[in-house]
């Protein structure tokens, strides 16, 4: 092997080492990016399901109460007791409005509690898995496309439900 060949070999080795180093550096700097489907996460979260059931029961109770007032109004009207019927109607509308307002405020409170919890679980989940960026897709166009392999909704949902269960 003459001197020229030796130099070429040494140079190619050096170039290979440099490119290997650059590749390693790029790989190390690569940010792990994933996304989750906000709607699916919210719908599947146990706390949300529990609150939904609580609200359903509350609605049934209140509907039964309003139904019985409505029945009373009808009976009073049938008996031509107009004054009493009018008072009962006012009571009905007042109660219905109050229930509606209370339900809306309860819904807001529950939603805030659910998202606070999910946000915290997402932070802990990302820390545990060394995830740098996690997008939340909500169908509004913020995230137009992402490959399915980057979708961690099911994983985060399982993690959140396990954490919520206190395990």
């Amino acid at each position: 092997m003459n001197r020229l060949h030796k130099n070429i070999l040494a140079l190619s080795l050096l170039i290979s080492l440099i490119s290997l180093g650059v590749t390693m550096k790029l790989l190390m700097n690569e940010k792990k990016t994933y996304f989750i489907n906000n709607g699916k996460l919210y719908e599947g979260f146990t706390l949300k399901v529990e609150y939904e059931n609580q609200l359903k029961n509350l609605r049934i109770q209140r509907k039964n109460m309003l139904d019985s007032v409505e029945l009373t109004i009808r009976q009073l009207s049938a008996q031509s007791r107009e004054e009493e019927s009018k008072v009962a109607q006012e009571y009905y509308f007042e109660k219905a409005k109050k229930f509606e307002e209370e339900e809306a405020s309860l819904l807001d409170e529950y939603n805030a509690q659910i998202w606070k919890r999910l946000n915290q679980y997402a932070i802990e989940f990302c820390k545990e898995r060394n995830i740098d960026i996690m997008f939340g897709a909500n169908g509004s166009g913020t995230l137009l496309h992402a490959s399915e392999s980057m979708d961690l909704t099911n994983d985060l949902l399982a993690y959140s439900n396990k954490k919520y269960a206190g395990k």
Partner: protein
Amino acid sequence: MQVNKFLVLGLSLLFIGCSKSNLSPKEMITWLEDKENGLIKQEIIDGAKYTVTLHPSQYLEARAIIENDSFMLANCNDQNCSIIVKMEPTDNQTQFLKLGVVQKEEPFGRINYYMNGFQNDIKILNGDDTLTVENLIYERLYNVSPAQLILFGFKVKNFNNSIKVIFEDRAINTGKMQFEFSSDVLTSIPRIKI
């Protein structure tokens, strides 16, 4: 015969290795306070950190021995357990009672809630049994620490079933929080070497 002797010796060593170890009172406290052993659980909600620690009867027994408290030692019962709920801000600066308050008088309402109302929002499950919360104490640390403590006791029915502590902090409006101590954890708690 020689083979049988070795077999018996081997099995005995295996049995000793697998059975619960006995620890000195000081070692016991260290063991119970080690997060890895599963008796300490944590939940963070909107800047508020709740650390729930389960103290089995071994803890009280160890403390009684270390502090040479014969009265406490005489009253130790295997079924007795206690829970300590440490409530602290995640920033370690803001007083927990002032976390997210809007009105000046809100911290006083919170103190009142922790002293009188919190007990109604605690539920303890031991398998399918619901246990009664006994002797709830609210420890206000004033401005010494931003944290607040709540301690309560209960009697466990069966250590082969998990213990689940469920509560809700209505003062902060956290929603329901659950902390489960599995039967594996409960049955792995060592005994005190006397």
